[in-house]
């Protein structure tokens, strides 16, 4: 019997040891934080987030019992491998929620807010309650969270989705539920056909918050070539090999060709690549004037020093999605000029006064400046356009009326004057490109080209 006990006891000891390990792991995790630079523990962050989510209700005084709350969802990756694309949604959403619910001066100046906060629809005071959800860069979590917001919370609009797969998968949830869905993924234009966006179409409530890819590529490549070397002739594209990268590559190639470049090769790099030297050596074999490195700025910052070491390009390098203010922090030394495209307007360098003021408000609110932060300009304007549409439609619940009104909105926002969604539910905007010449910046805003280059699908 004793020997039997000895056989079994280690298992129960094992369970105790397992529990101890789990507790230790939880303590390590709590101590580690979420890996962010600020080192704020995850638990504390979650508590802050929860408090912020509860804030609108807590702030509402008794006199405001008649306020009607409009629930809007934001489902984006605030952690995980796509975090770089997700933080912008949270930054703009929190700023807008604060401005609208407290009646910030900018909101009043835009003719949206009441002085005491909130906005009127059909003579009744409304406020925004934005539900932020971190999908952890997991498509299954993303869809589950969108299901929760659509079915349980009852959101009427969702800033849901980037990258491409996430946006497409969650649109299958939002569209049958008639929830307005905004996504920055420029790949959506392929499914935003005239038939799909028409009344009764399968994507009637889906909106692309960034310009058409041929417009964006045309705009950033013109700016890049003009600033780096107007006399350049040969460019090589190095593109991340994923859904977005495969979509972007032919557009970038056509845009470069439209700006007088020959593109001998598109070199795709795998998401797991860390040593880019062999790829830059391959690019160097074409004797390129410009190397266009797309589309992840954090990877570009890692990769370009390797290119500089082997002298891969003759005139300069082009990277995407980073602002000069962020670039300065990265302290990248280069004898050759490095161009960077902000989408749409750059932090710290833009000529547009409304955008400069936005960045002041953005910083004052405590939002962090990171790669792709400039994308927050787009969703920021989207919220205001949406509220204008609610006001014009006299309702936020009738999605069909709201979509019809939204298509009529012409909004003077932070990005441009007369900003609007066209009949394919896509906006049009120019982009700003800046070039750093040994730390000195020069910027150029380029409106989107009037016509697509030859070979563009659908034209």
């Amino acid at each position, binding site marked *: 019997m004793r020997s039997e006990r000895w056989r079994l006891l280690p*298992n129960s000891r094992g369970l105790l040891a397992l529990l101890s390990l789990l507790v230790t792991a939880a303590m390590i995790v709590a101590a580690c934080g979420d890996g962010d630079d600020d080192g704020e523990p995850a638990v504390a962050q979650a508590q802050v987030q929860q408090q912020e989510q509860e804030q609108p209700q807590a702030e509402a005084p008794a006199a405001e019992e008649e306020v009607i709350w409009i629930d809007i969802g934001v489902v984006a990756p605030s952690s995980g491998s796509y975090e770089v694309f997700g933080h912008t949604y949270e930054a703009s959403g929190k700023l807008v929620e604060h401005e609208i619910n407290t009646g910030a001066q900018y909101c009043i100046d835009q003719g949206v807010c009441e002085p005491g906060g909130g906005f009127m629809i059909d003579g009744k005071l409304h406020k925004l309650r934005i539900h932020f959800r971190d999908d*952890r860069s997991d498509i299954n979590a993303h869809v589950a969270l969108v*299901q929760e917001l659509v079915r349980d919370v009852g959101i009427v609009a969702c800033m849901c989705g980037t990258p491409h797969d996430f946006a497409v998968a969650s649109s299958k949830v939002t569209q049958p539920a008639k929830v307005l869905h905004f996504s920055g993924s420029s790949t959506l234009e392929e499914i935003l056909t005239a038939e799909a966006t028409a009344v009764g179409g399968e994507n009637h409530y889906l909106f692309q918050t960034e310009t058409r890819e041929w417009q964006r590529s045309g705009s950033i490549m013109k700016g890049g070539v003009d600033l780096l070397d107007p006399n350049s002739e040969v460019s090589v594209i190095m593109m991340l090999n994923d*859904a977005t990268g495969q979509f972007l590559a032919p557009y970038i190639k056509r845009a470069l060709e439209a700006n007088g470049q020959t593109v001998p090769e598109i070199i795709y790099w795998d998401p797991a690549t860390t040593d880019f030297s062999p790829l830059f050596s391959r690019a160097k074999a074409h004797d390129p004037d410009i190397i266009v490195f797309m589309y992840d700025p954090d990877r570009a910052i890692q990769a370009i020093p390797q290119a500089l070491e082997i002298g891969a390009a003759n005139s300069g390098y082009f990277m995407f999605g980073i602002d000069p203010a962020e670039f300065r922090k990265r302290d990248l030394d280069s004898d050759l000029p490095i161009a960077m495209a902000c989408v749409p307007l750059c932090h710290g360098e833009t000529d547009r006064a409304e955008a400069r003021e936005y960045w002041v408000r953005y910083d004052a609110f405590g939002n962090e400046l990171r790669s792709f932060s400039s994308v927050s300009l787009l969703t920021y304007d989207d919220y205001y356009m949406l509220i204008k549409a609610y006001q014009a439609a006299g309702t936020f619940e009738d999605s069909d009326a709201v979509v019809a009104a939204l298509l009529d909105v012409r909004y003077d926002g932070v990005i441009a004057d007369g900003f609007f969604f066209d009949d394919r539910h896509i906006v049009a905007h120019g982009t700003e490109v800046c070039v750093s010449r040994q730390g000195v910046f020069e910027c150029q805003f380029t409106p989107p080209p009037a016509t697509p280059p030859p070979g563009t699908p659908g034209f």
Partner: protein
Amino acid sequence: MIARLQASRARRLSERLTQQLTPAQTVVWTALLIVMVLFPTIVSSSRFIDTAVTYGIFAIALYGLGLLYGQTNYLSIAHSALMGMGAYTAAILFVQLGFGFWAALPLSALLAMAAAVLLGYPALRVSGYHFVIVTFAACELFVLATRNLGGAEARSGLTGGAQGLDVTEPVGAIFGQSFDINLELEPFYYLVLAFLLIAMVAAQLLIGSRLGRTFRAIRENEALARSIGVRANFYKILAFGISGVFAGVAGALFAYKLRHIAPDLFNSFEGVELALMVLLGGSRRLMGPLVGAIIVGFLPEVLDVAGIGLTPFQRQIVFGLLLVAVIILLPHGLVAGIADLYSYLKRSLAETLRPPPGSSPPPSEPAAPPNGDTLAAGDAEQRGAT
């Protein structure tokens, strides 16, 4: 006569499924089945129901993986690719030929099985870590192939390249009941549950069959099995092929759940996660894969709702530590560990209550095999198929 034969066969099958359950196991299984059936009513959160659907689909694939690993001791990372094979088959048949879910389902299962057999033929020549690495590589190869078959222009080609494929129609209705998860979660949940129960029953029947015994004979001593005339290579490939069927069915369901598939959904990381679920829950107990899927699927969601959401980075640390702990301390998974603990407590209680020496001894239950390896030594072990 035929009817009597059929009735007799059905009775034997039913007995094989139920006769070996102890009262405690019957209680646990009944409770679990009730919870699974009532889950959408008990848990009103759409987030959790959606998560249950997703991980229910994964659990179907896990029963295939559990069969392979538990019965032959080969741990495959390629099961996410086999799921991908099923998903891509369903999506391509829909996009190219307009096949609906029910028409595509058998083809998804068959092609996944064929892929498993093709992969198994060279891969099963090695074992242990080498087999894991080969299947890991196969998984990456699948992702590379599906990502790049689209060519330079997105959405061209058979697989749609990195942008993947859209399945615009839902699962076809049965008896007027539609299964559009984006309109109603519950019908799709019950559809997945039905497939999951079929997978569990199929796995249990296979394990208890002559084929299952052959697999275990190879697992326990391949040389000995060969010496008595068992064609070990054939049976190992067969086991891999059968496990591919489970993955193929799961893949087809997954394609119709998300209604959009892309290569990265089936990468080696997902394969490792499937293996993690099987290792955590345990592969030799019927409940093991299901418990593994529940832990991996629901733990992050529950923690998130509780306000201590784990980032993917933290999740990897926690699951990594959990996996190390389980492998070292509970090599047959949590379910086997809990069953061991239960046996130990029961035995201790029996000893405490045993009458003093001299009185007549009560009839004692046969001792459980060590570490809950209830399927280790033949049919008698089936008793503990928790």
